[in-house]
């Protein structure tokens, strides 16, 4: 057993659970948790988008909800206003968010640290208010709902559509899984290592000939793409789009999920998101000030496990392994 193998086993376990959740969850809890779980998976992508920037390139964005919103409105406007089918609307949403990331990133990644954080908030606020006030297109306060077009249709009678809960669940799992697989591949590539050099020491990165600006921009666009997929999926999930989900507190929540889950680990965001959304679902009914609990958890994690739960896990696995072996093994924690 190497730490690497243990982590791979962990990933297989999460994947198996996810694939079998429609059968496993109803045994223990109410059936609507299957729905909540698929929603968590979608939100985890938003956290993953934050994580890609913060955990790997060292840019803390408080504006990822902007790209989530673009994906969401792309789908809703595509279907309700333009009359697109399922796949074109999906593509339109992702294209919109990725393009938005390219344009805003062009300006934003010139800055770092708090300046970067502030400009991402500013961008997301600009488009939040635009979405809110552009009623004919976005529905403003009321949001924009649509009727679900089929994914595939064969002739007049048969069609596969997300209106079937099983189809919807597995469609979401497939798309979310594809995004994580994509990020996994990129992070293990030369580009992924270049991301980490920029986070670690951008001056040194430039001095060895890496174009820090282009690397940051690329990461920003990939993060925008991932958040866009999440937003598009969320529009399909709820059959509507609303500016509420573009507000910066949504971005902030994603930052918290990413940090709790473990910035700099691929699946940390899934852990953080499921944990905190479960808390919200369970506690918000019982106690309206449940956010105090969330706050305490954040403080405890940040102080005692600065690398989040994912980092805690990696540390544990490495330590257990170090004890059982000679302790001179590669650490794969960062990738």
């Amino acid at each position, binding site marked *: 057993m190497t730490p690497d193998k243990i982590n791979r086993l962990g990933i297989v376990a999460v994947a198996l659970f996810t694939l079998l959740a429609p059968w496993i969850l109803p045994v223990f809890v109410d059936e609507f948790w299957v729905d909540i779980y698929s929603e968590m998976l979608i939100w985890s992508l938003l956290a993953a988008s934050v994580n890609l920037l913060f955990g790997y390139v060292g840019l803390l964005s408080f504006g990822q909800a902007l790209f989530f919103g673009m994906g969401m409105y792309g789908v809703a406007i595509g279907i309700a206003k333009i009359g697109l089918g399922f796949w074109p609307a999906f593509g339109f949403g992702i294209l919109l968010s990725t393009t938005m990331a390219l344009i805003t990133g062009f300006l934003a990644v010139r800055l770092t640290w708090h300046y970067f954080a502030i400009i991402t908030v500013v961008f997301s606020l600009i488009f939040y208010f635009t979405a809110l006030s552009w009623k004919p297109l976005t529905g403003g306060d009321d949001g924009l709902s649509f009727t679900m077009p089929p994914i595939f249709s064969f002739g007049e009678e048969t069609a596969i559509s997300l209106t079937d809960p099983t189809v919807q669940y597995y469609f979401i799992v497939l798309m979310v899984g594809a995004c994580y697989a994509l990020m996994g591949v990129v992070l293990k590539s030369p580009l992924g290592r270049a991301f980490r050099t920029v986070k670690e020491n951008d001056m040194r990165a430039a001095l060895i000939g890496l174009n820090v600006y*282009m690397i940051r921009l690329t990461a920003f666009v990939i993060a925008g793409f991932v958040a866009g997929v999440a937003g598009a999926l969320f529009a399909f999930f709820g059959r509507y789009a609303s500016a509420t989900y573009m507000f910066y507190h949504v971005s902030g929540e994603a930052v918290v999920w990413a940090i709790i889950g473990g910035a700099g680990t691929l699946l940390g965001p899934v852990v953080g998101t499921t944990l905190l959304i479960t808390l919200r679902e369970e506690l918000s009914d019982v106690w309206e000030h449940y956010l105090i609990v969330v706050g305490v958890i954040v403080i405890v994690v940040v102080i005692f496990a600065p690398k989040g739960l994912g980092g805690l896990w990696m540390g544990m696995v490495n330590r257990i392994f170090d004890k059982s072996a000679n302790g001179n093994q590669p650490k794969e924690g960062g990738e």
Partner: protein
Amino acid sequence: MSPTQILEIEDIEKHFGGLAALDGVNAHVESGKLTAIIGANGAGKTTLFNVITGILPPSAGRVKFLGQDITNKPVHEISKLGLARTLQIKSVFNGMTVRENLWIAAQSRDGVFKPFQRASASSRANQVADQLCEELGLTQFANQEAANLSYGDIALLEIGIALATEPKLLLLDEPICGMGPAETEQTVEKIRNLAKRIDIVIIEHDIEVVFEVSDEVIVMAQGKVLARGTPAEISTNAEVRTAYLGDDDDA
């Protein structure tokens, strides 16, 4: 331009507000010689390195590397032309392993915008990284995070990172600063060996080391070149003695 001049610095000025950190520097580095830059604190040595490597834009003047004007070029492009440097405050990728540090520097020559290729499949970069680990005596730490290394090993790693980019000219900013006697001796030996295959410019405060390793010495004072010559010429130069070396007379 003479073909032996690998680096030419022409009338470089750098002003920070009203302060002229560099006040018309003219100098050149000859290929095949180890050049040392000495001078008191604030003479402008590191500022000059920063201008050469593109970290700071000069207020006036030109820098030519291998006959090509590199003034105002971005840092990463200058690196790609074959100019590497270490920093006065040791600068490596702390959270990455020693091997990854060397690997990414080597890979920078082949390009990193390869999102769908596995990093571990880059055979050339792998080879360079392993070879440098061996050469620097860091193989036993290859899979440790750079942050865990001793100070001397971090300095070595930083030189290794610079070498992994296969530079034609290497600028070393106080490479032995903060080292003990044993580490100093080791590093000086390494620098002397390196100078056989690449051109090196070194900023150093330790005059003994400078006179020991260098073929050519440039003395800077108050943002200007005060004198230039072989170590022997410099040690007997009256102007230099009063301006700089004189401080060491009582030592």
